[in-house]
């Protein structure tokens, strides 16, 4: 049983990580806690569901479609909401409040259009059945999520660490003004980040929608709560942190169900989070950015 | 003359970086004491250790005979040490008057009950604080801007505000970290006069500065820090002529860069 639980924990952790990647990317570069990320995640899932239902797309093109659609939505949100706030030098919690408004619009808009009932992807998009590996059960979609979250993290990590684009993004993250002075197209990279992060959110929406077999207008909200915990646990804006934080939460939840009791699951997970913050005030990977006196 | 501040084999490391190593320094009561040294020598770190923002890795600090180990920054301030910062740290969103009144915090004698009961004490203490704040602002010639937002001050004015705010904590020892950075010569001269006036009111001043005219003009006694060690200590004249100091810090005056004839093309 323990082995199966560990597998469960790994896949749940990767579910959280997959959601958290885009979320943390936005925070890392734009410095905005984007509370509409859960809604964008949901819209990505709905967009792909509609595309699959109407055009019978195969999985890979459904994912691509979700990436582009959500990405476009992210771009639009950036252009219409975040960019004007940047230009006005809004105090730092203001963009977050604006994204709450965006989330309300998207959640209720989708509900107005598609109703509050659950939907699911047509069966056959991927197999529902699980592979049995030496007595351990794992579905194709779980395997996909695990692989994808590791691959995405590695790609993002290398891109941020080793490429000039990555350095530029980190420069923007610290000081847009300094970045301008270096000739970095700051606005352009803000758009790019918003696009990519939202796109990742959409992909996560599809995969997690497939994983849980349930799409509903508020499906992003619980994810968002967990996502916030994950990226803070990992250290805000840190890509490794998103994965480690996700895995941590996944393992904490699954193991507390297995050994403590499922009604204590969230208390254990959040209690641990609380304790970790007391020991590591900037999360697991947070660097102390205390400015010099 | 008694000792105001005593650093006793003070050290501070950051990871492997030994920023201060066995620094011994005694600063007498009264007068203006200077600390100079190359960039990165550890001068600001000395201030950070004195004010309790960083704990030392080794050694001890005594202020008027009292060991400062384990004291919190606000407790050290209440003991009578105030400072300004190399990168200005005023409260930008507050008015000048409020900035200085924050400095008076510990001296206001009303408690939270008086605050609620609208007692006479509350009002008289607040009035006293306001008057004192105006007085301090007038010391640095900023009283006419008392109700302006601090953020709207020019750089030089912000430095002066920081000075007034530090004085408000009623210090015996005033630490100034590069007080004239970013000022032009005539502003420097003006501030020089103000600092001298302050010193004459009985404050002991300990300052870091890179402007040699300013330091040499104000300080009777100067120490030079290089790579975390004191390499010289003495009068301005002695320091000016110390070969080690010239080598590490001052350079040669005649070395001042000019546009020589060949460079002046065009």
């Amino acid at each position: 049983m323990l082995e199966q639980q560990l597998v469960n924990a790994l896949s749940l952790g990767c579910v959280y990580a997959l959601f958290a990647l885009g979320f943390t990317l936005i925070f890392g570069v734009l410095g905005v806690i984007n509370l509409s990320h859960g809604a964008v995640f949901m819209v990505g899932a709905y967009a792909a569901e509609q595309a699959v239902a109407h055009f019978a797309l195969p999985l890979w093109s459904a994912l691509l479609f979700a990436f582009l659609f959500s990405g476009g939505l992210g771009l639009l949100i950036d252009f219409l909401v975040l960019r004007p706030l940047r230009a006005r030098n809004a105090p730092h919690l203001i963009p977050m409040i604006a994204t709450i408004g965006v989330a309300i619009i998207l959640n209720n808009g989708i509900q107005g259009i598609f109703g509050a009932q659950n939907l699911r992807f047509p069966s056959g998009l991927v197999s529902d059945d699980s592979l049995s590996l030496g007595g351990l059960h794992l579905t194709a979609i779980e395997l996909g999520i695990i692989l994808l979250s590791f691959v995405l993290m590695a790609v993002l990590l290398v891109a941020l660490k080793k490429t000039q684009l990555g350095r530029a993004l980190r420069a923007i993250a610290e000081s847009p003004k300094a970045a301008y002075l270096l000739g970095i197209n700051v606005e352009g990279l803000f758009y790019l980040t918003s696009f990519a992060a939202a796109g990742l959110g959409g992909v996560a929406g599809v995969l997690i929608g497939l994983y849980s077999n349930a799409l509903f207008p508020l499906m992003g909200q619980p994810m968002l709560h967990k996502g916030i915990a994950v990226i803070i646990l990992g250290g805000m804006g840190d890509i490794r942190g998103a994965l480690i934080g996700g895995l941590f939460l996944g393992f904490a939840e699954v193991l507390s169900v297995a050994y403590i009791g499922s009604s204590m699951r969230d208390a254990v997970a959040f209690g641990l989070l609380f304790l970790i913050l007391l020991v590591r005030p900037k999360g697991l990977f947070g660097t102390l950015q205390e400015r010099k006196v | 003359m008694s000792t105001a501040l005593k650093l006793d084999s003070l050290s501070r490391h950051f990871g492997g970086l030994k920023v201060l190593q066995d620094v011994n320094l005694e600063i007498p009561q009264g007068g203006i004491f200077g600390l100079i040294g190359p960039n990165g020598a550890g001068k600001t770190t000395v201030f950070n250790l004195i004010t309790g923002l960083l704990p030392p890795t080794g050694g001890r600090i005594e202020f008027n005979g009292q060991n400062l180990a384990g004291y919190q920054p606000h407790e050290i301030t209440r003991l009578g040490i105030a400072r300004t910062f190399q990168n200005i740290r005023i409260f930008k969103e507050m008015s000048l008057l409020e900035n200085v009144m924050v400095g008076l915090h510990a001296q206001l004698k009303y408690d939270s009950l008086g605050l609620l009961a609208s007692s006479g004490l509350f009002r008289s203490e607040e009035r006293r604080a306001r008057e004192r704040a105006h007085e301090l602002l007038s010391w640095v010639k900023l009283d006419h801007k008392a109700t302006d937002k601090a953020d709207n001050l020019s750089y030089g004015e912000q430095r002066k505000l920081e000075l007034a705010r530090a004085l408000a904590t009623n210090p015996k020892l005033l630490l100034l970290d590069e007080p004239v950075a970013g000022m032009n010569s005539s502003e420097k001269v003006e501030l020089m006069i103000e600092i001298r006036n302050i010193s004459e009111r009985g404050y002991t001043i300990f300052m870091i500065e890179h402007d040699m005219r300013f330091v040499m003009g104000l300080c009777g006694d100067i120490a030079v820090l290089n790579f975390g060690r004191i390499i010289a200590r003495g009068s301005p004249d002695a320091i000016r002529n110390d070969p080690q100091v010239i080598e590490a810090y001052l350079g040669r005056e005649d070395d001042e860069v000019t546009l020589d004839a060949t460079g002046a093309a065009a």
Partner: protein
Amino acid sequence: MEWFDNFWSVYSNLVLTLGTNALLALSIYLTLSCGMLAIANAAFMGIGAYTSALLTMNYGLPFPLVLLAGMAAPAFMAFVIGKPTLRLSGVYLAMATLAFGEVVRIALLNTESLTGGALGLNGIPQSTQWWHVALALALTLALLWRLNRSKVGRAFESIKEDETAAGLMGIDVAAHKMLAFVLGAAIAGLAGTLNAHLTFFIGPSEYGFDRAVDILTMAILGGIGNLTGPVIGAVILTLLPELLRSFKDFRLVVNGFILVLIVLFLPKGIWDPARFTQWFGRKGSRA
């Protein structure tokens, strides 16, 4: 006065909710004014609500006593968790307080014999009168107004701007943060108590993440430069959904749009005296 009776019979709950929401917005304003993004206020509200409701229902204590207990319990809780938590800064503090809130919510769910679990407590006597809410709000405003004008208020503001510099002004930063946190918790508990004795029923889901974010939104949207902002924010956020009833299925969409527009065009919050002077200044110069 017939119109008033009519108005009151329809809208009394709405008006009193405005009052309790204003208290909640003020409770978070207090910590924000000290530079702390602490969002345990929903949890503190819940602790106040449950403590007071249980005292009323199980022991029949008189309402004034219950109110006191409803403030004291969350204040005590804040004091206990404040010590380790308030060292955190920014979003990390937000997260720790949010995590605390989750733990409180789950504790309420799991202590079924006392709290009724997910089913909540029902049949709470309706002891809250309109003037209780009015008085609570007036006293809170008066207290905070006085606080703002004192050395404590200045200390809060300086801590918000620069903690290190504030410490070097002789301000005990940790103690002041604790004061703001505990006082904020007490005010949230007061709101929770008043609310619990108004609506017959309380349940754990009312004190979760959504409520925490709601409270924060009210304060920020209104503006946290002074006391007026949070109150206005609470009023607007409470009334908006009511005013938009005619939009039916899409009313929350419209609600969201309005929220975004307010933020876009009034990024410092609705109540921003600096902008008012700017407007009047501009008018003056035109004239």
